């Protein structure tokens, strides 16, 4: 067994979390609450190091007073705790929404629509080896059919009848394959985390696996 106190703490806390598999219990609740606090504390440190120190402390120490403007705007958020002046927190929200939404429209159109359309289109290299399972013409056409049918499946402005029904049925097949793939991948990711934890307990804690 390990003689390192930190390994013991890690092992016992891991077991405390796993104890939830039996049922909700005080040990799990303690670990859960501690985890919440530590995670928020960790986020505060990240925020301090990456943003506050870099964008507030350094500029002010260099007497770049313009930094005080966004600081003052940001501080308006804190009026959330002053009932009579709560409406002032709408100002920083409006600034964030205005900049973010104005900026995101062209970016989203370019990245999510144009680039995806470009990726979906059949190109001339696909004709060189039409049956190539990765970059052949048949696969290219299959992707086009899949994308169009998936989009049509989510088109609810018209009743799904006739050709639209056929297309949306094909669309749901693609969607189901996609969901199955995502589900399978997520299950395996969680499994690898579980294996990692069990490996830690048996290797570093009780030294059962050498």
């Amino acid at each position: 067994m390990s003689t390192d106190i930190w390994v013991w703490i890690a092992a016992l806390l891991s077991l405390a979390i796993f104890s939830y598999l039996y049922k909700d219990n005080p040990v799990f609740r303690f670990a859960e609450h501690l985890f919440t606090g530590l995670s928020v504390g960790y986020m505060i440190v990240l925020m301090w190091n990456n943003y506050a120190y870099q964008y507030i402390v350094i500029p002010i120490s260099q007497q770049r007073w313009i930094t005080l403007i966004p600081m003052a705007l940001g501080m308006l958020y804190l009026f959330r705790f002053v009932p009579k002046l709560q409406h002032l927190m709408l100002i920083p929200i409006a600034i964030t929404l205005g900049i973010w939404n104005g900026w995101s429209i062209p970016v989203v159109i370019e990245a999510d629509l144009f680039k995806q359309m470009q990726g979906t289109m059949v190109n001339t290299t696909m004709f060189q080896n039409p049956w190539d399972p990765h970059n052949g013409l048949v696969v290219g056409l299959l992707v086009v059919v899949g994308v169009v049918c998936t989009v049509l499946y989510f088109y609810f402005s018209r009743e799904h009848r006739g050709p639209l029904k056929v297309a949306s049925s094909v669309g749901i097949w693609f969607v189901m394959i996609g969901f199955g793939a995502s589900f399978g991948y997520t299950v395996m990711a969680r499994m690898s985390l579980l294996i990692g934890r069990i490996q830690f307990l048996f290797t570093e804690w009780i030294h059962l696996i050498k």
Partner: protein
Amino acid sequence: MRRQIPLMLVLVLGIFFFIQFFVPSRLSTNIYQVSLQWLILISAFAIVLAIGSLVNHHLLKIKRRREHWPYSYATLAGLVVMSLLGILGRFPGLGLLDEIYYRLYLFVQAPMDAAMFAILAFYMASASYRAFRARSKEALLLLVSGFFIMLGVIPLGALIWDRIPDIAEWIMMVPNMAAKRGILFGVGLGITATSLKIILGIERSWLGGGGK
């Protein structure tokens, strides 16, 4: 006025930054860079607000002796200890605090994080049983796709049949990608439509009061 000023700000800034994207000049790029820094700073205060709300919630829980109130001490202690160690540890001469912070992350936070997500494996296993019952053509496709992906990413899959990893990769790269692209189109159109609605003041739920 309480609502008009924020609405006007969203409209003006939204139109300005929409146009800014298409203006290829140094001034335009500088404005973008500075506004991005300002945005980060302003957003940082929103996180302060969130942390304040969390602390407030737990302090109230302790004060009013609500159900499970003693556990709130664990949350508050974790928050204070972790943040103080991480911030103070960066100062010269306080390296020991940084060392403790690092160990707290490595041996307390990270194992609990991994364990918390690992227990989901058990719940997903029971969810798989319900989701993967082949009661229709669509459910069968979900089952087959999930089956190949799960087998394809572990060595056992290749031991059973050496083509399984290839099939898993093909599923990921062709039908899965087609579905994801279709969904992404919908998401892109949705984001664009919502952004326009917010800029033009049609969507007002962010003002509070149910958008009235």
